């Protein structure tokens, strides 16, 4: 399993942060997922080895955290918040719009592998609702039209 140099330097730095190696697990999993796309058996095994844990211990942690996934996702993971503050300002309708536009449901992935869709819990954008995250980027004060623009930008950026 080959990770980027940035991953390796960050991982090495993290090991100096804590008195136990295991403490680096959660952030390491997310950084690994960012590079590999998802936490495959191979990635899990690699991280378990590095932190002197069993694969099962790592899986046990993965299943707790909502951002971690053991299944492949689209290049752009569209996460629409429908929690209370977003719901009051159209978050649910925005999610429906994305479902229709992308032709997929909650946790679905488009056939071309470009988009995944997820209904997520509060992302901390309540005062700028409704909001969504595409991967890590925040998009706020959204409407169906603004959302379309965001999705179009993703399509343009994607290699053909």
């Amino acid at each position, binding site marked *: 399993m080959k990770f980027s140099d940035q991953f390796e330097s960050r991982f090495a730095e993290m090991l100096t942060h804590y008195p136990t190696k295991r403490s680096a697990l*959660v952030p390491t999993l997310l950084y690994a997922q960012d590079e590999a796309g998802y936490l495959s058996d191979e990635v899990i095994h690699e991280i378990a080895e590095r932190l002197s844990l069993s694969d099962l211990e790592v899986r046990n942690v993965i299943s707790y955290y909502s951002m971690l996934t053991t299944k492949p996702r689209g290049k752009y993971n569209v996460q629409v918040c429908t929690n209370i503050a977003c719901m009051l300002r159209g978050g649910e309708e925005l999610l429906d719009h994305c479902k229709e536009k992308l032709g997929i449901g909650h946790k679905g992935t488009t056939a071309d592998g470009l988009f995944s869709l997820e209904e997520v819990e509060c992302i901390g954008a309540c005062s700028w609702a409704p909001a969504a995250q595409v991967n890590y980027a925040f998009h*706020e004060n959204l409407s169906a039209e603004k959302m379309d623009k965001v999705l179009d930008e993703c399509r343009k950026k994607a290699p053909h």
Partner: protein
Amino acid sequence: MASLLSHPDEVKVVSKRFGMGATNLDRYLELDGYKAVQKALGMQPDDIVNLVKNSALRGRGGAGFNTGLKWSFVPKQSPKPKYILCNGDESEPGTCKDRLIFEHDPHSVIEGVMIAGLAVGSHTGYIYIRGEYRYLLEIMQKAIADAYARGFLGKNIFGSGYDFDVYWHGGAGAYEVGEESALMESLEGKRGIPRIRPPFPAVVGLWGGPTVINNAETLASVPHIILGGAEWYSGLGTPKNGGTRLFCLSGHLNKPGVYELPMGYNLKKMIYDVGGGIPNGRKLKAVVPGGSSTPVLLPGEIDLAMDFDSVGKAGSMLGSGGVVVLDGTTCIVKFALRTMKFYQHESCGWCIPCREGTDWLKKTLIRFHSGGGLKEDIDNMYYLSENMLGRTFCPLGDAAAMPTMAFVKKFRKEFEDHLEGKPCPFEKVGAVEEMAALSQ
């Protein structure tokens, strides 16, 4: 990047440097940065604790415990290292304030962690930032690296002979990790399952060492208190509720946003003046005053001072500062359902009353909202919630039960209106039709 709004009633303490480029270390220094920690280095630890105690600063994460008092619980002598842990796992629905602090003033959090460290005799601090806030984690990583590069962190800080390290840590998506003991589990690389208390973290915390856990806004307030003094800070608020607070206004408002207002600011004024009132000339139906876990208030209850004690007396909680405003078009059953869906999703499953209770309540509310509710379920929901209260390791069970009890108690008629297959009386007005007006 979240936009900033302003209102003349604001008293800017924590938000003083917002929009002023203070992520840059030189700019932060120009704006009185790292002066407070240097002052604290010349103080006795007990004097720092007493100063913060007397400032009446109370935990901004939601519980509202006196910060100085919390620090005073850390034993002076400890065979194990002591730690400072900054809680930046902001996830309470309705809350989006720590985000602005990390985005605009990351060094103030680092400085707050350092001062907390000096106060309790710790040499190591961690700043935990939720996984969704990746751009903020990057801002914090740079801020910490910059502080190390200047010698503000590490060995012999500011030539004082005192060593202090600060490390960043990222989460990966979990509301419950915002609870102090689950936060420590997560930092230790485990599932965020809460720990039983006692022992409290101040005695047995991270890796068994005494640990102070404070919210990011709490810690960012500390440097200002050191420089301005306890009397000045406590005088900004109401008795026993010192200072200011970042209130996150959201929902049906003309000017939702994050505003820094003195503790004890009137809620009605906050909604109608600061928040610009309710769009489309609609009437206020209810207010959730401090994040989704706080019991809802009725329009008749909002002539209220927004401090911990006054909101507590009114039967709710000041919580995390997330004020969610609901107008007359909102279906309370649907709102209660969405709230419960959240808690059911976030319950870690460790304690049975929370795991089963949230699931049961969610299913009952789904049935209610779809018109299949049974009359006896109204009382059952209340009874079930009542029996979750205080019966779990961490407050997530309470956080789910408290708002549900308030919804049932205060909006009983609305639940009754959903009985016997009646269609939801609010379905006609969709939020999208409202959007044009709401997005002003």
